């Protein structure tokens, strides 16, 4: 148990020590998106009745930050440790693979939540924010952070070089988050793209998170919630199998 807590603490400290890059920078990026998109699109995009575009954008940006940063945390920590060789320090001790998984996963969730909260507080400077069901949104943020944290663990284990990880980030994470309805309601899309969006698990996370703000969503939570939980469990299972086998970590 102490082994797990130490690893978790170390992973949190690792990003906290460089919070300028790991918290402040993504927060500023999200706020820039808010200013640019709200300026450019607020008169062109109609979202939910009774919900202004800026208000609509806020939860999308918050959740996008949670997801991207959770992924970044576990994946970058693992690839750095692998490349610099200091991964041996966590491979030598009697830390079980389940503890290993949970420590990296929870640290990723914490990073996601810290950045998400910073973005939320930042947006409050620009626009009033009202959250109808904060606990529901929090649950979605934790689940979403967990899912991307797990995906980050997989990416970190699989990648052998930084550019492989960058490819993962640029060709999978970025398109999936940008095309997940952060900036629009998928009902404004042509039917073909609407159908495609339904295969994007990140869409369900953003949608559910936003439901917590407005009580309105693109698809029913009775569909969205199981999808999110299912994806989280599936990715976690893959992580555990990889770690148990020592895939690319123990040769």
């Amino acid at each position: 148990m102490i082994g797990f807590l130490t690893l978790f603490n170390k992973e949190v400290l690792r990003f906290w020590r460089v919070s300028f890059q790991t918290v402040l920078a993504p927060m500023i990026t999200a706020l820039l998106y808010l200013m640019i998109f709200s300026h450019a699109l607020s008169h062109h995009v109609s979202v939910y009745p009774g919900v202004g575009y800026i208000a609509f954008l806020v939860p999308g940006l918050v959740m996008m930050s949670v997801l991207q940063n959770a992924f970044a945390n576990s994946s970058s920590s693992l690839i750095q440790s692998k490349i610099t060789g200091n991964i041996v320090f966590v491979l030598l001790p009697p830390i079980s693979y389940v503890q290993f998984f949970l420590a990296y996963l929870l640290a990723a969730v914490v990073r996601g939540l810290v950045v998400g909260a910073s973005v939320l507080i930042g947006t409050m400077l620009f626009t009033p924010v009202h959250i109808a069901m904060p606990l529901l949104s929090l649950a979605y943020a934790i689940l979403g952070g967990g899912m991307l944290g797990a995906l980050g663990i997989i990416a970190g284990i699989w990648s052998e070089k930084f550019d492989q990880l960058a490819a993962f980030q640029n060709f999978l994470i970025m398109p999936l988050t940008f095309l997940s309805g952060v900036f629009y309601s998928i009902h404004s899309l042509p039917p073909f793209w609407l159908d495609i969006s339904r295969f994007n698990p990140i869409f369900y996370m953003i949608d559910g998170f936003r439901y917590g703000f407005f009580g309105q969503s693109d698809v029913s939570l009775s569909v969205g919630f199981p999808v999110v939980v299912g994806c989280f469990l599936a990715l976690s299972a893959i992580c555990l199998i990889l770690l148990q086998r020592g895939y690319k970590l123990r040769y």
Partner: protein
Amino acid sequence: MKNVPAISVERISKRFGGLQALKNVSLTIEQGEFFALLGANGAGKTTLISILAGLARADTGEARIMGHCVQHDYRAARRHLGVVPQELAYDPFFTVRETLRIQSGYFGLRRNDDWIDEILTRLELLSKADSNMRSLSGGMKRRVLVAQALVHKPPVIILDEPTAGVDVALRQSLWQFIREINQTGHTIVLTTHYLEEAQHLCRRIAMLKLGELVALDDTASLLKAAGDLELHIAVNPDHLPPELLSRAKSLGNARYCLALASADELEQVLCVLRTAGVSLEDVSLHRPDLEDVFVQMMERT
């Protein structure tokens, strides 16, 4: 628990693609031993250590640390083992003390500062305790690696070239420290390319060659088997008495080499020379050292 070997390796083989890194290696190291694992670059030392540490998996065979299988009972095996890895690695986010506290935590130890302070003192790192790992010199980083392997006071300690890049004074104080640890009952296994270190420190030695165990014996027996004591002399005049000439090897320039069965024989040789009126210009005794043994072993096919 008392009589279980510190390390047991049974018919371990490991292949990397087309390369057989370890071939059917078996060896047992008892508790309390000071043991050297020697071999040329690429012989398989680090691979064997990695298997013991659970960093690599053997294709066949079984390895145990204090009786715990490194595969099936990996947590117990790792708790009993401290490894100083060959590759210099460090986490640039932390100071030396933080690094050691974190490493203690990984082994389930929460308040370990007294021992950490002692290790830091013995390894002459105390003045660097609060420096970031990044700012340390290479030799200091290696000492931190040694410290990290010791935080949990493991009964079995494996050091993979711990003195590479460490200066002379520290090498000696490091070995002094390790020797004391050994005297309190900890088993020590080391690899090094400084063979005089191994000869000096280790009671027993294994040699690997291209993944195969080619020697496994007491240091003393290996040295004895490597050949006799040799007496090198330069004489004046260059006229060795016949009873000596018959068994001497000429090295040219009035220099000769005589094999002695024991140190006792020296007296007799000197006596013969004195009687023959031959004086000695120079004399030296050469005892085969571990380097000679090593070269012999590696040349043998």
